[in-house]
């Protein structure tokens, strides 16, 4: 009598193909998410192509002199050392975005491996990995980043690694939950019965199902990584001048608020807009992928 009961209660499997279609239509319906998406595309193009076109470099001291107002030659004026602020915004944005992107990818990698292994293999692996994850979550991660960067140095590579190592836990939990769910489905059982090795089942059958959740986490993770990097650089413990990032450009801006407020306004406004766009896009993606939403 066990088999018929199983068939009745077995959850409906939504094939990946069908989910894709509903996903795109519902994402297109979300105007804020689409706006955020196109804004991000445009901004990335400007930041990555811009420095190739713009004639000033971010570290060269121009002949205009320090703290100049805007002009055609310097659309955002010059900073306290007479450097072109527009060039610094472009280069700084490039580094801020690259650090955010790389930290996100790296922490998705760690989180996915840990979460998927814990969920798939269960038993001892599960309890060790998930206890480590919980312990890491209880550590105030901003202080972890702060201490680690103080000790290990502040090269961009180190900043990426440290931020990634402090932020993978949320991804691990999401992937863990999803893996637990998907490994109960018949297609996994079928693959198992057909003699596929555990690693193959995990990579070929389970990870693709978990991918949507990973993408949502990744989008929100970039926002978080950019905010963390900026905060750390603002405090003077992140990427060091003369290399510009939007965060460390604000470091000196406080002294010049009385004379050149634009130095303080621009980098922060850029960070806010980009983080906002990633958050809206992430929320939009999550709504679009939510099964409750898809059914409608």
């Amino acid at each position, binding site marked *: 009598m066990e088999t018929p009961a199983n068939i009745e209660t077995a959850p409906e499997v939504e094939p990946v193909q069908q989910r894709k279609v509903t996903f795109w239509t519902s994402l297109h319906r979300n105007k804020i998410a689409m706006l955020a998406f196109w804004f991000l595309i445009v901004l990335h193009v400007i930041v990555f192509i811009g420095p190739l076109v713009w004639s000033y470099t971010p570290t060269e001291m121009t002949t205009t002199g320090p703290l100049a107002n805007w002009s055609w030659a310097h659309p955002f004026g010059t900073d306290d050392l007479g450097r072109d602020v527009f060039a610094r915004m472009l280069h700084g944005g490039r580094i801020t975005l690259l650090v955010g992107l790389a930290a996100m990818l790296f922490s998705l990698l760690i989180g996915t491996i840990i979460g998927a292994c814990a969920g798939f293999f269960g038993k001892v692996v599960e309890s060790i990995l998930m206890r480590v994850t919980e312990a890491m979550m209880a550590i*105030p991660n*901003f*202080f972890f980043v702060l*201490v680690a960067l*103080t*000790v290990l140095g502040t090269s961009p590579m180190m900043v990426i690694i440290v931020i990634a190592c402090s932020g993978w836990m949320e991804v691990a939990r999401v992937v863990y939950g999803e893996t637990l769910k998907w490994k109960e489905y018949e297609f996994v059982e079928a693959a198992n019965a057909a003699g596929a090795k555990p690693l193959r089942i995990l990579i070929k059958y389970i990870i693709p199902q978990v991918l949507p959740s990973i993408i949502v986490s990744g989008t929100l993770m970039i926002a978080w990584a950019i905010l963390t990097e900026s905060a750390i650089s603002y*405090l003077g*413990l992140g990427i060091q001048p003369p290399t510009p990032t939007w965060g460390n450009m604000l470091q000196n*801006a406080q002294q010049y608020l009385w004379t050149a407020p634009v130095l303080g306004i621009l980098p922060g406004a850029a960070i806010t807009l980009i983080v906002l766009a990633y958050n809206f896009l992430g929320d939009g993606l999550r709504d679009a992928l939510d099964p409750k939403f898809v059914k409608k």
Partner: protein
Amino acid sequence: MLRFILNRLGQSVVLMLIVTMITFFLINLAPGGPTGAMRMEASPEERQAIIERLGLDQPVIVRYGQWLGDALQGDLGTSFNSSEPVIKRIFDRLPYTIELTVFTVIFSVTIGIIIGVISAIKRGRAQDHFINFSSVIGLSVPSFWLGLMFILLFSVELKWLPASGVGPRGEAFDLVTYLKHIIMPVIILSMTILPNIVRFTRSSMLEVISQNYIRTIRAKGAKEFIVLYIHALRNALIPVITVIGVLIPRLLSGAVITETIFGWTGIGSLIIEAANSRDYPLVMGITVVITLVVVLSNLVVDLVYSKVDPRVKNLA
């Protein structure tokens, strides 16, 4: 109940050990190590003498044991820069941080719950959309930049509020000046936790409103005000207790940034000073104190929660 408390207490102790171990090893195994940063001009002999005096030639695990033994007796070592005990430097600055965070929690919980309830009651209407939109903005604005913009507006342009400092203390204390100094730091620090409290209160309230007992009360003809604020809100606030526990680490991270912007002399700005001058014992000490605060506040939140909602005990 006793078993639950012991269980949670045990977890907290293990967590403290893990955090102190990670921090200690990180600081001691780093290239250059703790001696590298001390007195660059020291000759190799002098450096050797320092190493022997501080016992740095011992294996790191032995040193961790010694450090732990001292720490349990309240000795967190001596600050490299001021030669004062680390614990004294921390306790000199801690009251300022407590002051700032307590005011911030009171402010953001009060405002957050009010806004969250409004958002839930007006679900799907303009007010709700506006509040949701503002919450996302609140989560996206870097607090250090918002702080700068506040200074630009209220100190530079309008000249209403002082840009930094903790205001006169002791004999010269004056309430108006004090409030002028603390208002901007409290608002900026609130921005790190307020959006989460709003979102959480909203979803908790929505869940409670949809329950049967609320329908029963409405069917009995109770006024909407009484239904919402007497019957629904009381139950909706229970889960909000937990979110406050979760937000304590965020609050303390926010305090580091806020204190640095506004020249507020708490332990948040102290850890930045310590980090910039490579004062490792001080960095280590502050990290320990902050982790202790986080662990203890989580413990308190769990205990309060299990008292308010007895179902939790059985889960643990």
